[in-house]
């Protein structure tokens, strides 16, 4: 089961940098990132890292509002149309997601689409029924 690291972030100078410096100190490798801004002066920073639990602990210790959220990682082809084809299948499975982040695995000509869904269990089921391959966490974190 893969996790992303979600962080509450105010849209203020220096705040993002505070997060990255904590992660640097903890020797965390960030694999991919996405910021969801709300236009209300704050947003959520979602990170895929090599060691989510370690990242969360390091940030928590510094008083940062941080949470681990279960994500579903799907394999896609790293070529034109790869995302489109995959999303078509996800739509057929009738799975809705709140946010998504993509990442390339260069050595394998493959890519991963990482989804954050409301109902984790039933979404996994639907996607598997659709014949989609769920990628294991070590591949997601890039530690395999």
């Amino acid at each position, binding site marked *: 089961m893969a996790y*992303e690291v*979600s*962080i*509450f*972030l*105010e849209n203020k100078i220096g*705040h993002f940098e505070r997060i990255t410096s904590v992660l640097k100190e903890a020797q965390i490798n960030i694999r991919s990132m996405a910021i*969801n801004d*709300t236009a*209300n*002066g*704050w*947003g*959520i920073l*979602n990170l895929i890292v090599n060691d989510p639990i370690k990242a969360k602990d390091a940030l*928590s210790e510094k*008083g*940062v*509002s*941080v*949470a*681990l*959220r279960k994500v579903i990682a799907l394999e896609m082809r790293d070529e034109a149309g790869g995302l489109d084809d995959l999303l078509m299948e996800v739509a057929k499975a009738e799975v809705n997601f*709140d946010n998504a982040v993509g990442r390339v695995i260069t050595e394998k000509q493959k890519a991963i689409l990482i989804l954050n869904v409301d109902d984790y269990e039933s979404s996994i089921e639907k996607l598997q029924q659709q014949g989609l391959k769920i990628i294991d966490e070590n591949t997601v974190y890039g530690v395999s």
Partner: protein
Amino acid sequence: MTQEFWQEEFETLGKKDLQKMQVERLNKTIENACRSPFYSELYSKKNIKPGTIKAVSQITELPFTTKQDLRDHFPYGFLSLPKKELVRLHSSSGTTGNPTVIFHNRHDLNSWANLMARSLFCAGIRDTDVFQNICGYGLFTGGLGFQYGIETLGALSIPAGAGNSLRQIKLMRDYGTTAAHAIPSYLGRLYEVFEAEGLDPKKDTQLKTLVIGAEPHTDAQRKRIEEMYGVRAFNSFGLSEMNGPGVAFECTYQNGLHIWEDSYVVEIIDPETLQPVPDGEYGELVMTTLDREAMPLIRYRTRDITRIIPGECECGRTHRRIDRITGRSDDMFIIKGCNVFPMQIEGVLMKIPEVGSDYMITLETMNGADEMVVEVEVKSDWFRGDIKRLNSLSSTITRQIRDEVLAKPIVKLVEAGSIPKSEGKAIRVTDNRKNGLLN
């Protein structure tokens, strides 16, 4: 000859006669107050008896009454009359703690309406005017207070209520509004709507008088409003504990607000020593009702900071003038015409487990309107990384603060630990408004 006064016999009463009238009314007020649970207990403890006041200056021998007293004896502890005699109440907002409620009998309402009519007349408004009251009706005294005054004066009233700027403009143009009452910060906003509609209030309305109050403002702000609208703008002062609007009003000389001394005893005290300060010096305004039957208040500490303007006014009214309010001797502030105590915000936040009880209030002028920005910390252990959950929390806080203080805040969620802890005297309110009077 044109009529210069609403009630010449009262408004131009010589100093001696005015003081004689105050002494008579003060004795009557004390006698009346002794029928209320609060004053009867307080005065019997202090051995104060009705009918013993010989000069107004003796009022300093009586104890003060505070807002806390009103709250502690909520709701009926200050009533001098049986409930059957009451015809209306006005109350402060608030869902936490006891509100400040004032009860009126028919005499009180008539007396208030008369003072309000006198005030409007004093600012040059006549029965030929069309008067639009751009102000919330209901428990807030600015709505009904002005309404009855306008009707008593005999002008045509438009009870427009607050907000909905396009409708306000339409009403003004449809009925040829010549006078209006609004809070000063709203008039800035309304002007922007005029501009956005391609209209100029100087040419496209018949406005000639604006009454501005319920919110402290500077003379520069008044002048700007006068220029924007091509009108004369008059400062109105009142507080619900003293009825509401119609307590003190500017005359056409615009050099201070005549405070109606046949209906109130006015004192200015040093809020630290509680001793009277000489005329001309700033201090806290303390007021006593002289013509209220249902709920007299004696030496009520208003917490408003002002001064008596020495000297006589050219208009011929003998009632002394107070200066515009320059601040408060407590931490109350006024936003969108609503009186807000930081404690009220704190009370709301303390009931919301997802946020910490530390908060910051910043008053800002945004797009011509004054806004109250409330920053609150999201608790780290509640955070799940879910935007929807945070957004819904933000709207809950917004709604609950609005229900409490009536003014809608802009709620900003901030990182845990980013607000200074409430140890000792942390400053919770910053006033960055263009015409903000706090600081």
